[in-house]
């Protein structure tokens, strides 16, 4: 995001709208009056300030972004569609369409590690720290996910070199693992957490068994986590419904 210093009246009304505190008031060299200054290193290119319409003089404008800086907008502005998936947002369909796609099956769990959330932002060096650790465990990173897309080597978890220097409001590392491997994933994640310079939110998903049980719960508790009281629930209303052995109507 850029500001036209000739138009800006230095009112500061846009400052609270910035999720990463990239804005301040000051004087540019050779510019007499106070104007808005955007710290381009901190700016995540999320576009909130511009969309808010708060500027009384239309002094903000979005310049055309090139890679690798474009990655900030792809991962920070939810209105931008990630071309590789054709869907807006930072991750995949994950559980949202699981009854149709059959992506997460009995005996498996979906794992999402959302770096920088909530609202702190993340460097992609931190993202790579986690992808490398998870790659060592042999997890299969999800197709259609922007982080996976920007990997140079999925076997090592290395990201493209120019991408590693970037940052974004958040970035989700997504993969599915067998329930046998889930404890190791959670253990390694706990081990590398002190090395990270940001926060992350962690989510784990699985299919509900016909008897109503969720086999990930004891694994989560054993690893020392407590689940929050609210969850996301796919109600199974989509067609074609994916059935596997053990489910209604399948021998």
């Amino acid at each position, binding site marked *: 995001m850029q500001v036209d210093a000739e138009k800006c009246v230095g009112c500061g009304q846009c400052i609270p709208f910035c*999720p990463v505190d990239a804005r301040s008031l000051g004087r540019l060299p050779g510019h007499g009056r106070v104007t808005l200054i955007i710290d381009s290193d901190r700016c995540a290119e999320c576009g909130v300030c511009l969309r808010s319409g708060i500027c009384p003089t239309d002094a903000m404008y979005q310049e055309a972004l090139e890679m690798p800086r474009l990655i900030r907008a792809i991962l920070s502005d939810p*209105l931008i569609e990630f071309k590789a998936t054709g869907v807006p947002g930072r991750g995949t369909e994950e559980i949202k*369409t699981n009854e149709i*796609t059959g992506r997460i099956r009995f005996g498996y769990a979906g794992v999402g590690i959302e770096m920088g959330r909530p609202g702190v932002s993340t460097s992609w060096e931190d993202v790579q720290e986690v992808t490398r650790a998870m790659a060592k465990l042999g997890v299969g990173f999800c197709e259609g996910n922007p982080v996976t897309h920007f990997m140079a080597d999925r076997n090592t978890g290395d990201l493209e070199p120019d991408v590693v220097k970037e940052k974004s409001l958040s970035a989700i590392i997504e993969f599915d693992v067998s329930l046998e491997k889930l404890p190791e994933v959670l253990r390694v994640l706990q081990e590398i957490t002190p090395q990270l310079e940001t926060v992350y939110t*962690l989510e784990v998903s699985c299919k509900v068994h016909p008897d109503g049980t969720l086999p990930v719960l004891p694994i989560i508790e054993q690893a020392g986590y407590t689940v929050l009281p609210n*969850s996301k629930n*796919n*109600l*199974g209303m989509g067609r074609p419904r994916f059935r596997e052995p053990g489910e209604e109507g399948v021998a």
Partner: protein
Amino acid sequence: MTHSLHRRGSRESLEKDFVVLSCSAKGFNDNVFGQKGKEFLRICLRHHPVNFGDMKTGNFLSVDPEEVIARVSNTTILEVTYDSKQDVVELMRDLKEADLGVSVIISGLHDVVEDIVRQVGLKRIHTREYSLGTHGRLELLPEYEVLEFTTMCGHAMVASGLVKHMIAQCKLGRRSLRDAAVTMGKCCSCGNFNVNRAQDLLARNLGLWVADWPIY
């Protein structure tokens, strides 16, 4: 993604907070989802949503609802927020009867969602995603009272500074609680931000917070 999953708050507050979503399944129904999605939103609109949006268009606090519906495409995510369990029960009855064949997801308290499923007569929840909380440099997070607002937008479009600014504006009498809640809600373009809950949270926080940050 997990836009609606990691909301923070007390049980009492989260009991009035539901996000109902639908999205296309790539390679399965992304050639017909647009029409189904429009029908989904029309049904949702009948049951008093407090917010409502399409990730590609924006929410109905900023865009006319008819325009949101008209612009639903084959590959998008639709998100509708409610503050009443009974409204969600009635909504789910209508969606069950309509049998659109698209995925429907509810984010909310586990037991409350399970009770909705029972009341509506759906078989059972198919797949569940749990939040295991936030980890790492927790000292970088704003106060918990601020997180209760900001986590209602999983894309972090509602800045913690804006929450504090709105509290200050309300304390100074420059904005009504409703106006402050809607100002925050407009930033969350998808329609996840529960403006009624935000209004309740603002009312609760007015007496607790001191405006010790710059007033613009």
